[in-house]
Every structure is written in C-alpha cells, then in structure tokens.
C-alpha cells in the first residue's frame, strides 16, 4: 500500500477527469463531475488521550473533538450537534465537483465531522493555534449561531448542513469526514473523506512546517490504528475566539 499522498490523489483526480470527459463525449453535454473521495481510507476508531474509545452516547450537546484524520497531520473536527442535521444536502467542493453530504451518525445522526482546514486560504486547526472553532452563539463575523468559524478571514460554516458556507469568502464547504457508529459498542470510526483535493493543497502549502512537526517521512502518511480525539483546548495551545 502506498502512502505517497501526492501520487495517490493526483492519479485519482486524473481518473475522475477521464471519466467525466468520456461521459461528456458520449452525452454531448457536460455531466456532473463528482468530488474525489479518498481511495482505501483508513478506518480509524476514535479514542481519548488514555486510549479508551469515545462513546457516542457519552458525548454532550455541542461537544467538539479534534483528531488527525485521514492523514496523520490533517486535523478534523467532530461535533455532537444539539439539533437534527439536514439530510441529502447536495453541494460542491472547491473544484466545483458535486457530492451529497452523507450526514451524521450516532444518536439522532447528530455526530458530524469535517476537515479542520478552511478551503478559502487553508488556515487550520494547528497545535499552536486553532484558527477554526465551533461557536454555539453569534460570532464576530455573522449573526448565525452553532457555526464553525475561521478567524483568519471570517468564513462561517453550518455543520448541520454539510458545512454550507453561511458567511465570508470561502468558495466551498469544509471537506466532509465520513463517520460510522457501531451501535453494539457505541464506538465511533472515521471512515473517509470527500473533496480530497483540499489535502493536496494543504500538503503543498504546509510541506515544510509539517515535515518539521511530524517528521520527514511520517508527515504525509495516512492515519493508522486508533486516533486520539481531544477537546479543542487540549489539542491546540490557543483556540482563537472570534
């Protein structure tokens, strides 16, 4: 199994384009181009700092957790919503490729997750500073509440609607992380990502920093085994409030 991110994603993107082009040729008009999904994504169980599984029914309303997925260096944001998420939200990634947001899992399907990387200018939830956070009240940038906000340029996303952009300059929703809930054990698994072009951009932009932080080889590997999910304040030294 290869861990070469750039190659994997570029090949994937090329394959998609080829399919789309072929379809265009046959039909004579543009058909939908679907967002990339990760090939063979890791199936990662979410655990706490002590290695104990996170239990879906133990999550409180509006509780948020940060974990690195699908890569060892890409942060994701999980939220236990206090409301029912929308169903069948159809949207597009930063490349304009279509996808249907798969929604949440667990009790009431209220547990959702997204990449903690803003698709506008790639500000992200870093260990030193979290530029994105989940706010239950109105924020500086909009009157909307229960939103994910990027403090760098004020993009605001609704996590109950596939991270639809409700304010600010972001061109597309946050990339969706797909989850699974095992009703027998009450455990939560991260199982994939949609709109993976974002990760290519992320690695291109932060290669030098990530190599320093995670090591020259490890920085672009896929997550392996259980992944630790932490409260935002435990994951980042400073969580910006804006």
């Amino acid at each position: 199994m290869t861990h070469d991110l750039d190659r994997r994603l570029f090949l994937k993107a090329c394959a998609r384009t080829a399919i789309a082009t072929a379809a265009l040729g046959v039909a004579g008009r543009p058909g939908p181009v679907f967002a990339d999904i990760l090939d063979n994504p890791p199936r990662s169980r979410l655990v706490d700092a002590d290695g104990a599984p996170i239990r879906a029914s133990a999550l409180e309303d509006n509780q948020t957790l940060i974990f690195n997925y699908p890569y060892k260096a890409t942060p994701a944001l999980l939220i236990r919503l206090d409301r029912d998420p929308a169903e069948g939200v159809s949207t597009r990634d930063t490349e304009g490729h279509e996808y249907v947001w798969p929604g949440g899992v667990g009790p009431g399907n209220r547990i959702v997750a997204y990449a903690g990387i803003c698709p506008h200018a790639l500000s992200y939830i870093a260990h030193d500073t979290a530029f994105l956070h989940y706010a239950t009240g109105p924020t500086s940038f909009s009157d909307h509440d229960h939103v994910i906000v990027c403090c760098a340029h004020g993009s605001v996303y609704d996590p109950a609607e596939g991270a639809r952009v409700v304010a600010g300059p972001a061109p597309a929703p946050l990339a969706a992380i797909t989850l699974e809930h095992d009703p027998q054990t009450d455990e939560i698994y991260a199982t994939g990502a949609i709109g993976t072009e974002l990760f290519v951009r992320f690695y291109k932009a932060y290669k030098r920093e990530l190599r320093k932080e995670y090591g020259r080889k490890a920085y672009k590997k896929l997550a392996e085994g259980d992944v630790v999910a932490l409260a935002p304040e435990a994951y980042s030294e400073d969580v910006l409030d804006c």
Partner: protein
Amino acid sequence: MTERKTNGIGRRGFLKLGAAGVAGAATIGGKAKPAAAAVAGGTMMAAPLPAAKGPRVVVVGGGWSGLTMAKYLKKAKPDFDVVLLEPSSVFFSCPLSNLWLHGVVETDMLIHSYVDAARNNGYIWLQAALVDLDREKRRAYTSLGTIDYDYIVLSPGIDYMYESFGVEDPAEQYMVAQNWPAAFKPASEHLTLKGKLEDFEEGVFLLTVPPGNYRCLPGPYERACMIASYFQKEDIPGKVVLIDPNEKPTIKAEGFLAAFEELYKDVLEYMPSTKIEGIDVGKKKVVTDFEEIEFADAAIYPRVRAARLIENLGLADPKSPQKEAAIDPLRYHVIGDEHTYVAGDARPMPFSKSGNTANSEAKIVARMIAAHAEGKEVPWQSPETICYSAVSADPLESIMVDAKYKHDGTGQGWGFTDVVMINDRSKDLGKANIEWGKGLWRDMFEA
C-alpha cells in the same frame, strides 16, 4: 498572429470572438494608439515566450490583483495561456509591513517568489514591464518584446501625486519622495523607512494621511501605532505626529482613537482636520492650514493616483481627480473594448485600495473574462475587504473590518454593505491578523 490550439471553444469560435472584439475596438476610434510600434521603431522582436497553448491572457502587474488574477484565470479556464508581466525580481508585501517595521514579523514573511507563484499555478511569469499597447492589433509592447494577446488585464497599482501638497517642481517632488518616502509602494521605500526608524535619534517623526481614496485606508494609523510602540520599546525620545485631513480616522476610527489615547498618549500626537499646504524641503517643515511643523524625519504619504501607465496608455478617465481608469464599473473592461480590463488599485470604483479587495476582486474579474471567452456572462459580485490593523505590538493586538460593496444599479453610486467592524483590540485578532496575511500569500503563491 501566433498559432493557437484551443480545445474549449475551438479555433473557429476563437476567430469569431476575435472579430467581435476588433469591431468593438473600432467603435472607439482614435482611442487605440496607432503609434505604438514607433516605440521600437517598428523593429521590436517578439518576447521570448513559448507559443500560446490557448487564448493568451496577459496580466500586467504582480501585486495582489495581478497575482490572484493570473492564478484564477487559469482556474476559471484551464486552456487560457496566462502570462504575468512583473519587472520586480521578488514580491514584497505591503500588507503586514507595518508589523515588520516594528519587528513583529521578519522580512522573510513578506517576501515571496514570482517563480513559485507561476510554477505552482500553471502560468508564465515574464520579468518585464508593459511599455505600450496596440489595442486594435491586441499587441503588448514590453521591455522584453511584443506579446500578441486575446485579453489583457492591467493591475498596475498606484503612483503618488506630490502636487497634492503644493509641491509642483519635479526636482522638489523627488527631494520629498527620496528623503521621506511614503512607503506604500514596496519594497525599497519600506526598507528605507525601517532603516530610518532604527537610526532615529530624537524629535518628531512625521506621518501623513492622504486626502481622497488612498491605498490601505487604515495603514497610516496602524503605522503611527507601530512606530509609537517601537519608540516606547527602544526608549527613543521621539514623538510620532500624524497629520490627517479627515476629521477622524477614515476607518476603524473608534479602535484607533482608543489605542492613541490609551497606549500612546505621550508618544503620538494625532492632528485630525489638518491639511498640508506645503513642504519646506530645506528646513524640514510642513506647512498646514494652522501652523508649521518641524520634523526630524518623516514618511510623507501624498494623494495617490492610478499608476501612470494607465494615463500613458490613454485609459485614464479625464474626469477622475486620481486619474483612475475609464472602465465599465461593473464589468471592469475599458469602455468599448471587451478585451482590455483594469483591476486593483487603478480601478475608479471607490473600493478600499487594499490587498484583500484586490485579491477577492481578481477572482471575480477572472471569472468574467473566462465567461466572456466562452460567449457567456457571469453576474456582478462584490469584492470583499477584510482588513486587520495592529494597534499594539507587545502583545500583538489588532482590530478589524470586513465589508462588501453595493451599487445603485448603474455602477455609479456605491456604498458599503455587510459590514463587520471590530474596534475592540484583542490578542486573538492579533493572531488572526498574521494568519490573514499568510492565508492570502498562500492563495497567491502556493496551491
């Protein structure tokens, strides 16, 4: 004309568009400059470029507008063959340079490679300046030769108008410009200003706010804060005097006035509603409508105008006091010529002349040009001005504004809309301030 392969609209479609464009240009008659070839005595060679692989778009100026334009033209229409003209060898950011003057951020954060921008985003950077334009033939004359194009976008930025201070004599204008550079056109002016601060002994350090719409509305106020803070930090017996023709700061007034009063009372004197009527270059004095102020050193920021290139190409609006381009305010093209566009700080619309405005606007204009090339039209969208200002350096604390624009339907009457103004300075906004810059540099130079 260079041989072109187009896979989007096909060669026939391209030729048809070309013909329509020529007809459009013909309607403006004498405005296109037939004498362009005279620049090179008719012998100018073609610029050293590979053959265009699709409709060629030349972007003039590697600032925030041009860099974003070049990248997003490629994104909007991948078969565009985009050439960015920028004579500077390196990019130096004006945004965040006030923090750099103080020492909050290092030089390497502000400088970026045009090579990186071009190779990461699929266009060509030609290190050349535009000299003249034959809009009928769609031929650009550059310092490295001619380029035949399908579209040209001018993002040349600003120049200064020293005559706005009553300094008319070019010799005196140069004295002012070189002795007390404004430092709103990077990078040499900025390097000189930083050296001045490091060398400063004592006395008044003079800063001025220009009249009219100028580059970076909060810039002079932020700079006053950063220099005042630097004087405090270095224990320099100096005082910043900020002369402003406006009644109060032109933006984020409450936040700036609070910082002036609470943080810099002893080292910063703010003089609102004060007009500069003359500069005594020999005696290092400015003459205002009230008094004469002596200074030990200064960064004198005059009224700005669209870059002289716009006027030299015959594209300035004769009615514009700041010599801004005569373009369709909603479509960005020169009136009667849908193959020549002007964006960024040379535009006539009263938007904030700022990096974020230029960046967000260029994405919109790029989509418009791509749509035009395909015989389509995209609806007008407002650019967005997201702008942080540092008011304290240690700890770093900032204030911010986020605004869009609305028009009266004709593109003449403009106003702000969707305004978010945060005048309470905070450390979180300070961190966001730096990330704001990093994010936009990533947008322009990286993936």
